[in-house]
C-alpha cells in the first residue's frame, strides 16, 4: 500500500551524495588545524565561564533582562483569503513587571495604504509580514525601555533583520539604548551566515561558495567556547554590529550573537549571560528566550478560538474557511 516512488528515493540519495562530495574536504579538515585557521583568520576562540550569582544579582538590581520575541500565525486559505495575527512580547526577568504585548493583524482583503490586492505580489506580502513583525518587536523593545528600564534587551534573532525591515524604529531603539546605556543584543538560534565559509573560500581556491558557518562549525567548538569575530572578518561590520559564535549547550551545533557596535565591550559579558541561561542538555537556546517564545506564540487553536469567538460565523465561514480546512 505504502509504495514509495523510486524516483524520489533516488533523488534524495543523489542530494546526499552531492552534499558529501561538496563538503568532503571541509568535513575531513583536522579539527585542531581548523581551529587554528579560525584563530588566525576569524577571531580568538575563548573558553567562557558561567556568570556567578552576584553578577546576575547585579543585573537584576540594574533592571533585569528583557527578552523580546515575536510570533505570527495565519488562518484561512491561499492569498488573499487569510487573516494573519502578529504579536510581539517584551518580558522582563524582573517579576513584578507585567509582560508587554504588542499586536497587529492583517488580511489582504482589507488593503492597507491604498494597495491594490490584485497588484500586490506574494513577495511583497511576505516582506510585509516581516516588516510588521520586526516593527512590532522593536516597538515592544522601545516600550520596555520606558516601562522597565532594563539592564539589557535580548532580541530573538539577529539584529540585522531589524535593520532591513524596521529601519526607522530600529534606529530609534539603537540610539535610545546607546543614550541610556542599555545593552542591546540578539541571539541567533539558527545561524545563516557564511563568515568563516567565505574566508575559507578566499584562502583556498579549491572550495567553492557558498559554505555556511552552521555546518562547518558543527562540532568544532567545545562546550562553553566562543569565537569573537574580529571586525576585519565580519561582513556585517558596515551595519554596525559585533558578533560572536558560541556553543552554549552540549549539542554540537553553534549559535550566534549580535550586539550593536558601540557596545562591543559588553559582547563577552552577554555571551556569558547567554551561556549561563542555557540548559546544558538543550538545543542551545537560552531558557529565557524559550520562555518568551512560548508565551508569545499564537497557537492554531488560539487563532481559531479567537476568530470563532470574535468574528461573526458568517463572515468567518465566507472568507476564511478554505477547502483544506473542510477535509
Amino acid at each position, binding site marked *: 500500500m505504502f509504495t514509495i516512488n523510486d524516483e524520489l528515493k533516488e533523488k534524495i540519495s543523489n542530494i546526499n551524495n552531492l552534499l558529501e562530495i561538496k563538503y568532503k574536504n571541509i568535513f575531513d579538515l583536522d579539527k585542531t588545524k581548523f581551529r587554528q585557521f579560525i584563530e588566525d583568520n576569524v577571531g580568538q576562540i575563548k573558553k567562557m565561564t558561567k556568570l556567578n550569582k552576584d553578577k546576575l544579582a547585579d543585573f537584576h538590581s540594574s533592571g533585569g533582562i528583557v527578552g523580546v520575541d515575536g510570533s505570527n500565525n495565519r488562518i484561512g486559505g491561499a492569498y488573499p483569503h487569510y487573516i494573519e495575527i502578529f504579536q510581539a512580547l517584551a518580558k522582563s526577568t524582573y*517579576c513584578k513587571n507585567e509582560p508587554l504585548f504588542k499586536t497587529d493583524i492583517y488580511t489582504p482583503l482589507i488593503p492597507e495604504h491604498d494597495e491594490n490586492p490584485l497588484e500586490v505580489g506574494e513577495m511583497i506580502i511576505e516582506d510585509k509580514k516581516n516588516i510588521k513583525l520586526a516593527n512590532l518587536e522593536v516597538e515592544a523593545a522601545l516600550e520596555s525601555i520606558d516601562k522597565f528600564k532594563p539592564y539589557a534587551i535580548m532580541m530573538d534573532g539577529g539584529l540585522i533583520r531589524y535593520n532591513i525591515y524596521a529601519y526607522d524604529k530600529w534606529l530609534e531603539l539603537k540610539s535610545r539604548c546607546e543614550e541610556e546605556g542599555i545593552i542591546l543584543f540578539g541571539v541567533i538560534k539558527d545561524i545563516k551566515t557564511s563568515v568563516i565559509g567565505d574566508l575559507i573560500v578566499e584562502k583556498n581556491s579549491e572550495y567553492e561558495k557558498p559554505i555556511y558557518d552552521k555546518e562547518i562549525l558543527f562540532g568544532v567548538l567545545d562546550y562553553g567556547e566562543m569565537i569573537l569575530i574580529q571586525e576585519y572578518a565580519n561582513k556585517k561590520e558596515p551595519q554596525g554590529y559585533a558578533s560572536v559564535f558560541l556553543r552554549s549547550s552540549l549539542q554540537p551545533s553553534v549559535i550566534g550573537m549580535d550586539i550593536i557596535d558601540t557596545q562591543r565591550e559588553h559582547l563577552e559579558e552577554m555571551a556569558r549571560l547567554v551561556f549561563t541561561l542555557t540548559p546544558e*542538555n538543550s538545543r542551545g537556546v537560552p531558557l529565557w528566550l524559550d*520562555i518568551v517564545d512560548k508565551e508569545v506564540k499564537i497557537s492554531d487553536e488560539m487563532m481559531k478560538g479567537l476568530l470563532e469567538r470574535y468574528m461573526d460565523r458568517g463572515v468567518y465561514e465566507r472568507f476564511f474557511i478554505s477547502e483544506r480546512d473542510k477535509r
Partner: protein
Amino acid sequence: MKVVGITTQQEFFIGSKERNFRINEFLIIEDTYQGDLLGEVVEAKTYNRYIPLNIYGDFVDNSVIDSLKALGYDIDEDTIYIAKVRLLNEALYPVQTGSDVRLPKFSEIKNLMINTKKDEGLILGVIRNTDDVAEEMDDEFKNLLYTFEEGQLIPQRELPYIFNIRSMHQYPHIGVFGGSGSGKSFGLRVLLEELMLKGIPTIVLDPHFEMDFSELAIDQDTTPSFVDKFKCLQIGIHVGVKFEDLSPQDLKNLLDAAGRLTDSMHNVVDILFKRRDSFTSFSDRLRMLSEAQEEGTIGKIEARIENADSEDERRAWKERKELFETYDKSCPNSSVRGIIWRLMRLANDGVFSKDIREIEDGLQNGKLIVIQGSTRILQVFSTYLLNNLYHKRRDYKDAIYKKTQADYFPPFIVVTDEAHNFAPKGYDSPSKSVLKEISQEGRKYGVFLILATQRPTLLDETITAQLNTKFIFRTVRASDIMTIKEETDITMEESKRLPYLRTGDVFISSASMGRTIYARIRAAYSTSPHTENPFDELKSKAKEEDEKFYSLIMNKLPINDIDMVHIISDIEKEANITYTIDALEEKLKLMADKGYITKEETLFGYRYKKL
C-alpha cells in the same frame, strides 16, 4: 478567579493566577445571567507551563533556573491554579465562561454546613478547608473544640461539624467505616463522648475493652469529666443472663452462639425446656436423661433401681426412668449431650450467673453502658440483651399507642465496633436478627444503631442500607471502596481519595444534609487504655527488671566468681528469689553488658564490681 473553558450546568473549571484552591472548599460564581451560584471544589490542580522543565523537549537544569531567579524571574510565579468545581444545585444553563468567582461569606453557606444549634447537636469535628469563611461565623460556633494534628492540639480554625442528633428521628442509624488505624475507633470515641455529654442512654458493645473514658487526654478547665457518665460492665462478672427470664427462643439463640445447633438439638430444647426453669433444674433434667440414655434400655435402668445402695439413689434412678420413658424417643442422646456441653460452656463463661438489672438502671439514668467481653460472648449476650431492651422499649411505646399501662423505658442508642461480627452478610448469626429488626423499625421506637466496621462489605446489606449517615475514614481495600461507593453519595473523585485520607479525616455522607462533607474529627477529651506503644512497653519493662535486679545485688558488690553460692543463698533469704549459679552468672554478665556493673579479671579468677 474566573470560570474557564467549556462549562456544563453541573461542572466546570475555574482558574486563578494568585490563589491556590483546596479540595472541598466552597466558591460563589457570579454568573451574569443566572446570579450567584454556589459550587464546591472537587478537584484542585496546579500547572506551570515551564515545569516539568521541558520546553520544546529540552531538559532544563537547576542551575539555569537558579540563574533566572538571580535575575529576578521566579519560574514558580508562572504557576496557575485550576479547580474543577461542581455546583451544589444544578443550574438552569451552563455557567457563563469568564464569570468571576469569589469566596463565600459565612451567611451564604451556613445552612449547608451547620443545620443545628450548638447545644442540640453532637460537636464531632471541623469541616475541612473552611477557615476562610470561619472567621465570620457566629460566636456560638467559635472555640468549641481542638483538633489533633501532627502531634499537637490545634485550636479550632474552621467551621465546626455538628451532627444533628435530632435528625436521627427521620434519618436513623449511623455507620462508621474505615480500615485499621484510620481513626475509626477514635471517631467512635468522640461520638460516644458527645452522647454522654447529651445524656443519651447508650449501650456500647466493646469487644476490644477500649471504651473506657476515665483517663482524660486534654487537661483544660473546660474539659468535661465522664467519670459518672458511663459504666463498664463485664459479662460474667458484672452482668449476665437471668436464666429464669429466658424464653425457649432466647435459650436456643444463646446455645447456638456457643456452638451451632442442629435441628434435632432445637427440638431437644423445645421439648425439655420448661418456662420458669432455673439453670439447675434444666441442666439436671438434661443430665439425668443423658445418663439414662447411656444405660440404653428400660431393663438396665430397672436393674439400677433394684441394685441401688440407698433410697436416694433409687429415687434418682426412678426419675431417670421416667424421663427416659417420656423423652428417649424424641430426644436422641447425641443431641442431648450436645445441648449439655453448650450449656456448660455458657455457664463456665459466667453468662448465667448475673442479670441485666444494672444495664437497665444505667439506661434509665441516661448513662453510657459499655459491655465488655470476648467477641463470641458478646454476640451471645447482646442477642439476649438487645432483644430484651428493645422489646421493653417497644412494649412501652405500643402500650402508649394502645392506651394501656407499661413501665417507662427510655429510647436508646446501640453502638458496636466490629459490627460485621454481629450482623454478618451471607450467613445467620443470633445477634443479626435483632440488629436487623432495630435497623428496620427501631426509628419508630427511638432505638438507633451506630455500627462501626472496617469491612463494610461483610456487613449485612439490609442493615447497611438503613444507615442514613455514614462516616467514612481511610479505606484501602478495593472491595470496601466499591461497597462504600454503592451505599453512599460520595463522588468518583472522593472515592479516589479514600485510600489517602489522613488519620482522623473523614467523609460524612448524611441523608439529612443531602451531601457529603469532608471533615476532621476533633481531638477526643478522653483517651483509650490501649495507647501505649508495645515496643515502649517492652523497653520500660526490661529496664524495670534490670533495676530490680541491680537493687538486689547492689550491696553485695563486688561479687567474686567463687562467692556465687553465698550470694544466691543471701538473695534467697532476702528476696525469696532462687537463682541457679548459671542463671545468676548469666544475669550478672547481662548487667555488665548493659553497663550497670563491670567485670574484671583478678588473680583469683574474675569478679563483678560497681562502676
